[in-house]
């Protein structure tokens, strides 16, 4: 159920505001969508990867003899065969294409094989003999902070330390007097993006010495910019085309098999396909940073915040990936969307020999949100206020400043959102219905209860997420728009490099073109590197950025049409001019770095809010949880496509539910214990409840159409709202997510 405050005039021919279905929807449901793993060429070879079984080890030698000798094997390559730069990375080039002399985490790629059959390739990879000398790993992030811990990379194990200091804390660490002080320590486990389409792609060698790569990724150009140096090729000889993406959620920001497939294709002169299986996929991409956090909140007797102190330690694993920016988010958003006069935050990202962690939906803001929202509930209890009231009393609004000193200069009606959320009707409680349906109870049809031990709880949480890239990054997108007559009728071709990762972007881009040009017939061309960069499908930014670029290119086309005078119809003009094509780059307003000592600075482009109410049924004897309902209010500035937007909020909420109740990569000494969907559990339809949504449209004057990025914010507040509801039902502290049954049943 969704109610929209503002009325959006959904035009009849598929412009913005309309409930347009996505072109890939039916295909995906029917199993007919062509994913990158379905790519196929007649004469292609199959690649396979040999990975390290060790968490940390020196490589003493690699013997390829047996693998090369296997019939059907066309190439066996190691770091010696990397044609160019041997390292890559989004922010720091610290990750080897193939391990050089040492491995730093379990699953690190050591060698690659191309063979005429995938099975042959796998067998050949197994036939490679690597001699390792295991080394004692650093797996405790707290130890990694210690300068005495063995450095995993030159320069030590602290990837970034970002302080935030405001108010009295600019003068020193001493906290100001407060009537009420609450302290809590919290932990967030390692969540995985758990996309369904494993890493895969097809590299095709070209006659000009270059390579064409068909790939499921989030940002074609940043892949290319990392690939080309490693391949020793100029960027123009490395051409990428987006293949069908089966979900991303941040896990496709880093390279996985891209360089490997291209190396094998260039070496063998044959197309090479690589597809990870599910288990390999768990080692093939970064995860969400696990976090350990200590928070101290001081408030006056009325519950108004006096200060927030926080230490946030994020385990970045073996390579940098996006840790720098994740730390920046945790620090800058670490106090949440509250007015706090005095803030003292230290956020750290460290190297360990755990799996590399990087981008995942919510990106550093998720971990902090679990910390500060858990604290707000503690504070509410200590002040004798309701969870809603304590948040309303401290809520930011337009004109507030967040922890970085950045002015909230767009609508931020957090207090109103909370009031609306609290006023929503409560759902029926299943255990109180006569003859409850097992599917409504904790445990579902596994029939662990028929009402025994079930208690209900309600929890609230809010979250603050930055939209678009932050901290001075030159964030832009490019769009090419062409209008021409096809069969005598006007037709628009929209060409961008923006990755459709399942979020529905291609639908929205076509809607924008229709609205801007008044032409119903719009085609969105496949995304590739023949057009300029669109930036990443990350940070909830594509509707904003590539939407903005398409809108700008359409405006440029419109200007050229206007030169022909308003009297003539579009068809008449186009008959005269032939095709009209314009390309535009779109940039959001500039952002600035955080001060290295105080964290102050206008580091963010746009801030987005979401609030959740969770109602849960908890079997307190068994520790099983059924989320009965999630209700949310989110302000998106402007709704471009209601059905797609709701899908984003549902999905983000589900991913937050997963973190609250089940999703964790379990580790032991740096080893992953559950690299499968048998034991890495993600929510099913019986775990994810119906949602009650209210979507608000308070426009942001700086953004195209006033829109606010919408893909991530619900991921933040969903987790702490559910945990708060479980705490409400059980009376337990539950300082760690995901909550496991034994945390409830045996505490």
């Amino acid at each position: 159920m969704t109610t929209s405050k503002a009325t959006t005039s959904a035009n009849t021919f598929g412009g913005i505001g309309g409930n347009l279905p996505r072109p890939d929807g039916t295909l995906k449901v029917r199993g007919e969508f062509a994913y990158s793993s379905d790519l196929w060429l007649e004469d292609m070879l199959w690649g396979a990867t040999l990975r390290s079984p060790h968490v940390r080890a020196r490589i003493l030698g690699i013997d390829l003899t047996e693998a090369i000798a296997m019939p059907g094997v066309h190439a066996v390559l190691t770091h010696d065969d990397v044609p160019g730069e041997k390292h890559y990375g989004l922010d720091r080039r610290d990750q080897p294409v193939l391990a050089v002399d040492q491995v730093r985490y379990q699953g690190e790629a050591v060698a690659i094989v191309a063979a005429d059959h995938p099975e042959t390739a796998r067998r050949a990879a197994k036939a490679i003999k690597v001699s390792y000398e295991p080394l004692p790993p650093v797996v405790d992030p707290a130890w990694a902070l210690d300068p005495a811990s063995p450095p995993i990379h030159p320069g030590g194990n602290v990837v970034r330390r970002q302080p935030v200091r405001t108010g009295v804390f600019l003068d020193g660490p001493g906290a100001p007097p407060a009537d009420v002080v609450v302290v809590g320590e919290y932990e967030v486990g390692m969540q995985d993006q758990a996309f369904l389409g494993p890493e895969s792609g097809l590299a095709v060698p070209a006659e000009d010495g270059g390579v064409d790569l068909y790939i499921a990724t989030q940002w074609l150009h940043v892949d290319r910019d990392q690939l080309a140096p490693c391949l020793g090729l100029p960027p123009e000889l490395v051409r990428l085309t987006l293949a069908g993406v089966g979900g991303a959620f941040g896990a496709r920001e880093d390279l996985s098999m891209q360089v490997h497939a291209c190396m094998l294709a260039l070496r063998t002169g044959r197309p090479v396909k690589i597809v990870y299986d599910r288990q390999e996929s768990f080692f093939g991409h970064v995860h969400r940073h696990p976090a350990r956090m200590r928070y101290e909140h001081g408030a006056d007797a009325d519950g108004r915040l006096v200060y927030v102190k926080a230490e946030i330690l994020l385990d970045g694993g073996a390579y940098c990936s996006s840790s720098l920016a994740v730390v920046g988010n945790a620090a800058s958003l670490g106090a949440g969307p509250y007015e706090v006069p005095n803030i003292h935050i230290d956020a750290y990202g460290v190297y360990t020999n755990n799996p590399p962690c990087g981008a995942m939906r919510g990106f550093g803001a998720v971990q902090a949100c679990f910390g500060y929202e858990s604290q707000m509930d503690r504070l509410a209890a200590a002040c004798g206020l309701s969870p809603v009231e304590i948040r309303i009393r401290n809520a930011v609004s337009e004109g507030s400043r967040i922890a970085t000193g950045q002015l909230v200069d767009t609508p931020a009606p957090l207090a109103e959102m909370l009031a609306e959320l609290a006023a929503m009707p409560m759902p029926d409680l299943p255990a109180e219905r006569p003859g409850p349906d097992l599917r409504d109870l904790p445990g579902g049809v596994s029939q662990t209860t028929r009402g025994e031990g079930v208690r209900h709880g309600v929890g609230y949480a809010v979250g603050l997420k930055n939209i678009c890239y932050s901290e001075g990054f030159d964030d832009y997108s490019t769009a090419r728009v062409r209008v021409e007559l096809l069969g005598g009728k006007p037709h628009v071709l929209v060409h961008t490099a923006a990755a459709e990762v399942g979020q529905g972007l291609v639908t929205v881009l076509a809607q924008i073109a229709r609205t801007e040009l008044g032409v119903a017939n719009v085609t969105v061309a496949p995304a590739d590197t023949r057009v300029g960069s669109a930036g990443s499908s990350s940070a909830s930014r594509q509707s904003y950025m590539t939407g903005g670029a398409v809108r700008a290119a359409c405006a440029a086309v419109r200007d050229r049409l206007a030169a022909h005078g308003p009297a003539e119809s579009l068809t008449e003009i186009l008959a005269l001019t032939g095709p009209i094509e314009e390309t535009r780059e779109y940039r959001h307003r500039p952002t600035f770095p955080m001060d290295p000592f105080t964290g102050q600075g206008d580091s963010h482009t746009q801030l987005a809010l979401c609030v959740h109410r969770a109602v849960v049924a908890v079997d307190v004897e068994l520790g099983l949880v059924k989320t009965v309902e999630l209700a949310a209010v989110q302000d998106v500035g402007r709704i471009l496509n209601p059905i797609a937007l709701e899908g984003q909020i549902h999905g983000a909420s589900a991913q937050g539910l997963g973190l609250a109740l089940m999703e964790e990569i379990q580790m032991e000494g740096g080893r992953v214990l559950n690299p499968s969907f048998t034991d890495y559990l993600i929510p099913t339809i019986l775990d994810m409840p119906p949602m009650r949504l209210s979507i608000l449209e308070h426009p942001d004057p700086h953004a195209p159409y006033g829109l606010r990025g919408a893909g991530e914010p619900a991921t933040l507040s969903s987790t702490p709202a559910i945990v708060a509801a479980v705490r409400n039902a059980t009376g337990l502290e539950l300082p760690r997510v995901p909550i496991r049954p034994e945390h409830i049943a045996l505490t």
Partner: protein
Amino acid sequence: MEFLRPASWAEALELKAEYPDAVPIQGGTDVMVEINFDLRRPARLLDLNPVAELSRWSTTGGVLRVGAGMTYTSLIRELSADLPGLAQASRTVGSPQIRNRGSVGGNLGAASPAGDSHPPLLAADAEIEVESRARGSRLIPATAFYQGVKRSALAPDELIRAFHVAPATGPQYFSKIGTRNAMVIAVCSFAIALHPRRRAVGTGIGSAAPTPRRAGAAEEYIAAELDWDSRAALDPRVVARFGELVAQAASPIDDVRGTADYRRHALGVLARRTLTWAWHEHMRERTTT
């Protein structure tokens, strides 16, 4: 890999005698996962799908004989009244797609301690019918079938043909713990079957020991304590003791799905709850008949 497709049961036995290393495959929900992940590389697969009789059931002398290839979906549809415990367990297996393919025979062949069908088969005193060309067929009581983690009493030249079990004469319940509300491998599970005519109680514990097993001491205790002839409500102390005895019968371990302490605790809870449901149902039936 050789793919053997016998057209009949006799031919299947011939092939199994000739190739004892051939891995039988029915729904493939276990075998194909192992092959796809390269955990197992059998030289031969013996496809039992063409043997139509395996997906049928019949009743002889008041005992059900259920073909090993009968899918969970068919079992739920056709045998829920006669085998309520097994039908409840079947409902918890995987997803609808898995239930459409998977079979009790496959569960028995894999002999995983976490297999969902084992606890209700144990509780209902089922017997497993196995057969070889050389020695013909034999019936193995479920209690003797499970011999270790993923090891059963099946000889290399034998195939599982069916299981035999009496239709329920009293209430049966199955409960399974998972950390999500569907599609989950058991953290632990428990089955109970009341046999009022024999004044006996059967139990089965899943995923809390190297093999599925019965809680013998708990069964004897509760069978003696229950006042079978009256409609007396259960004494909470008796229910609690039953739960303790069931928990004690388990030998759980810590693993990625749960801790030993939690498994033992949860088994006690499940035992108490399922016993209570079963006894209430028993009393209701006595009231109505």
